[in-house]
């Protein structure tokens, strides 16, 4: 079975400060890892994904994520937060072989204050 843990229900950060949204995963085999963002009353929007290669993945809107195999983590980061980044963020995992479900975490609400 595969799973994703997002240990923080909410992350608060001041505008201009760096932000981190945490994600750890469990999967057999090599993981495929994704981050999605959900704005109020909107569907999920793709931010970035890790398939293979460089551990630091760059995505939309200035976000990036670092894959750490030894810690089974895929934390989302941004050097300087914007108020408009306030939204619900979901981490998801699947595995690289055969027929695999995309499993989502419960989500982390990011609140960026002016």
């Amino acid at each position: 079975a595969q799973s994703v843990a997002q240990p923080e229900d909410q992350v608060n950060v001041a505008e201009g400060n760096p932000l981190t949204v945490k994600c750890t995963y469990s999967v057999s085999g090599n993981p495929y890892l994704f981050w999605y963002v959900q704005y109020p009353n909107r569907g999920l929007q793709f931010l970035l994904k890790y398939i293979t290669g460089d551990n630091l993945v760059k995505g939309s809107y200035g976000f990036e994520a670092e894959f750490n195999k030894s810690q089974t983590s895929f934390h989302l980061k941004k050097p300087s937060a914007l108020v408009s980044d306030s939204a619900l963020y979901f981490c998801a995992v699947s595995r690289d072989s055969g027929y695999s479900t995309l499993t989502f975490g419960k989500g982390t609400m990011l609140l960026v204050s002016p």
Partner: protein
Amino acid sequence: GAGVSQSPSNKVTEKGKDVELRCDPISGHTALYWYRQRLGQGLEFLIYFQGNSAPDKSGLPSDRFSAERTGESVSTLTIQRTQQEDSAVYLCASSPRARGSTDTQYFGPGTRLTVL
């Protein structure tokens, strides 16, 4: 180009009634997924269609739930004899090909279902 669209955006129904939710995937996407998102929770996989293959229904919570897809286009999710616990946002996503692969899933805006 156009993204995934879903209708209706909101649906309020009475307990025991049947509802149909519609999803129009991105043109050319062979894979289509339905998820359920309950308040304060993550996405719960319901069903997956891939081309002309038999759908994977392993996520459907009960036999009151069913879904159909016409070729590689529109899909409808039907919930019969709705219960209050069916209240949730139902999200549809499509991707160019195989599930769980490197392909990104693109999501629609969702249908918010409220069962009174």
